[in-house]
């Protein structure tokens, strides 16, 4: 097999130099001539009817160039999900009703920020306040105020149901009755947020040719274009979403946001560029946060720990509109069934409207929440049965070759190897339970620091069918044999531009520095699946591979003519093409390109490649029933946390993380390590300190001073073990898996399990604040 020159190597990021130098232009840095400042008037009430809006005084304020309300809009709804079952439910600018604090009511474009702010104060809105509800389980009750009518297909006597996922197989009740042990627990994953460093920001510029140009801090330009065009009533060709660097997203910048719509509408109204920038306070108060989840888990096991049955009920608070609520209750099923074999299952998930602010995907989207619950309970079951946490997991973990309940094959799946490698690397078995066994000894020594170890597993899909479903890539050879790589992929920091470059370099035998990437412009680049659902390296990567192969085939055809040889006898290396058996007969790539221009139809060499995930099915699986194929490949991991808990203060310090993960084949090991590091950090915050606090629909800790994310002193050193289950071969399709979001989950569960191991205190509601540990210790006394 050929030695790989670029793929599998820790090539430095393509965008490293411009980011290190400060030259990289983020949306917030874009400044256009005559640009106006946009400010948005938002509802201060959690639930109200809008009776009247008077913008006349604001419009008369000198310096105000445009004011928009719903009457300037086409009143077209949009939604994270837009399907016949789940039609769009949110106006991009409120029409007659507001359903959460912060809902957009009007927008102003003015010559500066102060004028725009002043104008907001001059807009007169008359509301009729409606009863509001904030607790998700209360919102389901029949006597709760109605935020939206319950979904017509949901028959249970509940109110405010935005959507339901239900599925089952086997005979759960029979299996429970035959179980040696049945446990039932309730878990809560809190409201938390992405904390991307670059706030939400959009620049919209509608010009006199009738074209809307938009730069926005997003996660993929094609979805933004589609939703903007539809809600604004413009053809796709008149909405251009262009690349700017994105300062982090983690799920929080997918979907269409009202500020993007309002900035666009204002620009269309006054024909000036308009910029809308959130302050950090606005990000905390009004931007969408991750999905909170309540999980009821009932599990029956045999005496040896084999899972016999599971009954899972999840409840999601989607806020005032559906958002991704109906997706997270579907995904929670998926992240529940992927890791262990569950022969009998009943799953039901409800997404419920409340008058809280809106929620959206956050890295893992259901996986961290579910893995926290399921892995916590797995340890509790293991303890009751007297089985080691590693053994019970090995007994239940899925193996390669298994077919998942939805029909997806687990082609190669390194979960078992991950468990074994991780446990071995940190000597899990000898450490587990030690602290609790030796508690008396510690007390004699007077030590209040307890050490614990815990494991968590997870698994994650690699790309699924969500608009735009597929990716295309074009590679152009230039006259001098440098390459222009054209992709719609948007780099949020995770590194697709670098990865795609490595793949093209490998396939074409062109050094990475000779490849320029042109990315993420709806007008001039190719459609791309988007930087979410963890499919970019797999889907766009395969498209890049095919594009490079396509260009090379054309190049070799020309070379064959020039060298009077058969294309299959040629070999390409170092930008030259040789006849294999007589290497003195050769032609440079540049000469081959020149020959193509001179002697063929004048065509320079251009290769194209297209790839779609889950090719053999027409559409994504049913969010309602879970039926249908989901993904082509599944990553997996086993993650171990070691913690120290101070039993006097309740403070938890994560001291070591061991991360064994199967991401298929690491195209760029350094980028893989960076993804894993980032996920550990995010999981530490999820486990221990992060929580968006809400009172009566108002967010009350809207700053980094009050919402603590891990800093450099909190970050744990970690050991990463790559379990390689795929091969990258030149000229062949590859099946690499995701690494960017699934690995935030196992380590979260592992921290919770390690805290229990250290203290004997089980915290079922995240985050594990010190006071919860102290209360638990008090109860044990």
């Amino acid at each position, binding site marked *: 097999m050929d030695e790989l020159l670029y793929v599998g190597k820790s090539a430095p990021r393509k965008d490293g130099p411009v980011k*290190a130098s400060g030259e990289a232009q983020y949306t917030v840095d874009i400044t256009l001539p005559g640009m106006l400042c946009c400010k948005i008037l938002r509802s201060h009430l959690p639930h109200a009817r809008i009776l009247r809006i008077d913008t006349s005084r604001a419009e008369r304020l000198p310096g105000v160039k445009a004011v928009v309300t719903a009457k300037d809009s086409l009143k077209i709804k949009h939604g994270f999900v837009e399907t016949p079952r789940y039609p769009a439910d949110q106006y991009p600018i409120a029409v007659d009703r507001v359903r959460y604090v912060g809902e957009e009511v009007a927008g102003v474009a003015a010559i500066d920020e102060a004028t725009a702010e002043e104008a907001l104060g001059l807009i007169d809105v008359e509301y009729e306040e409606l009863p509001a509800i904030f607790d998700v389980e209360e919102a389901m009750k029949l006597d709760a105020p109605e935020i939206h009518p319950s979904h017509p297909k949901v028959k249970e006597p509940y109110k405010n149901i935005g959507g339901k996922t239900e599925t089952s197989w086997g005979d759960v009740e029979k299996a429970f009755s035959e179980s040696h042990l049945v446990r039932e627990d309730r878990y809560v994953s809190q409201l938390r947020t992405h904390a991307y460093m670059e706030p939400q920001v959009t620049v919209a510029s509608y010009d006199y040719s009738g074209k809307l140009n938009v730069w926005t801090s997003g996660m993929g330009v094609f979805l933004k274009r589609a939703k903007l065009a539809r809600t604004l009533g413009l053809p796709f060709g008149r909405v251009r979403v262009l690349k700017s660097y994105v300062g982090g997203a983690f799920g929080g910048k997918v979907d269409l946001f009202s500020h993007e719509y309002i900035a666009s509408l204002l620009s269309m109204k006054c024909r000036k560029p308009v910029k809308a920038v959130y302050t950090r306070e606005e990000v905390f108060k009004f931007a969408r946060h991750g999905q909170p989840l309540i999980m009821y888990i009932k599990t029956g096991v045999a005496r040896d720990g084999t899972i016999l049955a599971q009954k899972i009920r999840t409840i999601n608070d989607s806020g005032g509109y559906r958002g991704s609520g109906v997706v997270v209750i579907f995904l929670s099923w998926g992240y529940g069934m992927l890791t262990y074999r569950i022969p009998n299952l009943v799953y039901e998930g409800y997404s419920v409207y409340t008058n809280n602010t809106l929620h959206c995907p956050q890295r893992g989207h259901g996986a961290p929440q579910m893995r926290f619950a399921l892995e916590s309970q797995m340890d509790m079951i293991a303890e009751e049965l007297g089985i080691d946490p590693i053994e019970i997991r090995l007994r239940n973990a899925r193996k390669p070759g298994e077919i998942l309940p939805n029909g997806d094959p687990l082609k190669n799946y390194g979960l078992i190897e991950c468990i074994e490698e991780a446990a071995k690397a940190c000597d899990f078995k000898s450490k587990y339970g030690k602290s609790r066994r030796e508690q008396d000894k510690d007390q004699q020594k007077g030590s209040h620091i307890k050490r614990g170890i815990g494991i968590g597993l997870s698994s994650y899909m690699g790309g699924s069918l969500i608009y735009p479903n597929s990716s295309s890539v074009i590679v152009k050879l230039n006259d001098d044999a440098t390459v222009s790589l054209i992709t719609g992929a948007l780099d949020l920091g995770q590194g697709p531009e670098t990865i795609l470059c490595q793949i093209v370099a490998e396939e074409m035998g062109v050094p990475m520095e000779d490849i320029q990437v042109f990315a993420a412009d709806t007008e001039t680049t190719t459609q791309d699946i988007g930087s979410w659902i963890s499919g970019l390296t797999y889907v766009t990567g395969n498209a890049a591979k095919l594009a490079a192969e396509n260009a090379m085939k054309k190049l070799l055809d020309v070379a064959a003519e020039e060298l009077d040889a058969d294309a299959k006898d040629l070999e390409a290396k170092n930008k030259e093409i040789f006849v294999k058996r007589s290497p003195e007969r050769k032609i440079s790539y540049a000469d081959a390109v020149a020959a193509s221009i001179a002697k063929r139809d004048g065509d320079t060499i251009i290769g194209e490649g297209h790839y779609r995930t889950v090719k053999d099915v027409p559409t994504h699986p049913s969010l309602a029933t879970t039926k249908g194929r989901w993904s082509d490949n599944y990553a997996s991991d086993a993650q171990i946390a070691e913690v120290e808990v101070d039993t006097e203060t309740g403070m938890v310090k994560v001291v070591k993380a061991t991360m064994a993960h199967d991401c298929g084949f690491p195209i760029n090991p350094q980028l893989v390590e960076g993804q894993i590091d980032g996920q550990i950090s995010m999981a530490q915050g999820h486990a221990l300190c992060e929580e968006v606090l809400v009172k009566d629909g108002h967010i009350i800790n809207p700053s980094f001073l009050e919402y603590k994310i891990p800093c450099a002193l909190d970050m744990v050193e970690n050991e990463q073990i790559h379990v390689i289950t795929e091969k990258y071969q030149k000229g062949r399709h590859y099946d690499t898996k995701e690494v960017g979001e699934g690995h935030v989950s196992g380590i979260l569960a592992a921290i919770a399990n390690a805290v229990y191991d250290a203290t004997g205190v089980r915290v079922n509601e995240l985050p594990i604040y010190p006071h919860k540990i102290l209360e638990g210790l008090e109860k044990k006394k």
Partner: protein
Amino acid sequence: MNRTKQYIRLRVNGEEREVAVSPNRTLLEVLREDLLLFGTKEACDDGACGVCTVLVDGKPMRSCLLLAVRMEGKEITTIEGIAQAGALHPIQQAFIDQGAIQCGFCTPGMILTAKALLDEKPEPSKHEIRRAISGNLCRCTGYNKIVDAIGSVAALAKGGR
């Protein structure tokens, strides 16, 4: 609001600059809006995240908390000012080589904080590095590669002696 502008002279990246500023404007605003130095980013506007860090007389300071009128006569260094003669500063290069950059939004402030540390203490321990950057938030990298990058420059300094 007192909108009377005040002239201030300061040195930015080695150049003498004179700007007229309202007394309520921050150094961050003046750097970005008046001097068009967009490398300095804003992420929180309340001093909590360190993203807007610049060097003021060599010390890392949050430019969102500094009033521009107080900068009279100060020497300001932004991310645009540390590459020399067309070559990136060794810390910038180390951030690239060690994979310490992902989205890059915290990178300018992080690099300047690292520069202040290394200027003062060329061979800091790992813990000293962590402590020095503990006021600079990063959500992408989990910090480990940033610590490695700064450590690699320190090691380089040690080797160079």
